[in-house]
């Protein structure tokens, strides 16, 4: 069976055994919209057991090649209609801090990608949060956490590049707008293939921002200071 979809202007296909379709359908990316058009690229799925890996590859490919959008690996929340970006590699603590900010009243954008348009505004990438714990990964919607998801694109107010360090306090230093651009560039999916476009978008996004970089301890302890970056 070939499932075809369009996402962010790109057409993708997933070929899989018919017996696995139902098992995989519930794990498709949240942007998966069926299309009858021929896919630009097709992935093969031998069994449902490979679904997370193959779907991860599809999501990453769309993120790199999205039309008129730049994907930055970052958590995103909005406070009073202005976005806070939390760039970080896998396991940096983006999801945990995002969830803590939602609990403090922020609106959800993403725990994975900040999706930027050429005007520098952030669009939601509202997949369920993937919360890691001792039992593995649990997918939880923002609504289940009692949070709203912002719908319209919002301007960037702040960037906080924070790495989780157990037992550590909130140890950050301000960084300039230009350095913030570099830190975001370092987390941009298409930084190699569309470097100049990415740079232009990041510059547009960071004209009037506050930015910090450093480490944090428990997420709940960091929330007041992180929120204040936007509120100021």
């Amino acid at each position, binding site marked *: 069976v070939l499932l075809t979809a369009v996402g962010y202007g790109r057409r993708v296909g997933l070929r899989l055994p018919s017996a696995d379709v139902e098992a995989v359908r519930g794990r498709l990316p949240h942007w998966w919209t069926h299309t009858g058009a021929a896919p630009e690229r097709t992935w093969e799925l031998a069994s449902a057991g490979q679904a997370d890996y193959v779907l991860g590859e599809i999501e990453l490919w769309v993120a790199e090649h999205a039309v008129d959008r730049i994907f930055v690996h970052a958590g995103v929340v909005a406070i009073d209609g202005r976005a806070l970006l939390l760039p970080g*590699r*896998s*396991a940096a603590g983006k999801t945990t801090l995002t969830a803590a900010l939602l609990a403090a009243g922020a609106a959800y954008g993403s725990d994975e990608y900040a999706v930027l348009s050429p005007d520098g505004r952030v669009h939601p990438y509202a997949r369920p949060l993937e919360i890691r714990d*001792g039992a593995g990964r649990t997918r939880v919607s923002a609504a289940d956490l009692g949070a709203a998801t912002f719908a319209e694109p919002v301007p960037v107010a702040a960037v906080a590049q924070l790495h989780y360090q157990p037992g550590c306090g909130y140890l950050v230093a301000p960084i300039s707008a*230009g350095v913030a651009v570099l830190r975001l*560039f370092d987390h941009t999916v298409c930084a190699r293939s569309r470097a100049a476009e990415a*740079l232009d978008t990041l510059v547009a996004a960071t004209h009037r921002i506050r930015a910090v970089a450093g480490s944090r301890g428990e997420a709940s302890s960091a929330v007041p200071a992180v929120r204040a970056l936007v509120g100021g």
Partner: protein
Amino acid sequence: MENRADGAMPRQRTKDLAVRAHCEETLVLDRRTGTAHCLPAEVTRIWDACTGRNTLAEIASAAGVAEPTAASAVDQLISLDLLEVPAGFDRRELLRRGALVGAGIAAAGIESVVAPAPSAQASPQTMTLQQQCTGTNSRELFITLKNPASSPSGYNFIVTVPTGVSGQGNISFNGTTGQGAFNITNATSTITIQLRDNNGNVIVLTKTFTCTICPTTTPQPIQACT
């Protein structure tokens, strides 16, 4: 460097660069190397003054900095290949003049980032486990991790198994697949593998497998855990 008549003065490189002013800073994308640089305000002014005609004193004056500071920044801009240096330019003299403010990129506050591969932004996705009973009440575990990330070298595997059982080993990555072998000394049916970050603090991926219990001293072929 003071003699502009010989024409031996550094000047801004323009080919294969994308330059964006950002507030008082400058972002420079080097398309040859895929590297992005952020020049602080002071270095921006120095870089702007590197026209190929200005002496070091004139560069310093235009940027509003002392000559040693300008010399150090010019040297660092040369090191980053952001300035073209014509034949006859005396870089040793420049280094001598800049020595007062120290060497290295950090002295000028230039930050650089090499564009990462897309896969650097991916999370580990799947893990599989096989076992081979090696006899003498021990078994070897083979772990495979598949991940869109091409170089998850920052991860360590921590193997967690039930009470009374211990084992740990290393895993190496080749492309998108990592494999490692672990020896454990007690038979067990449930194996939980945790992938943690390179500090061992954050659990990136956890999966529990069920394996057939080994006969105590009989070697067995490799079989998959489920």
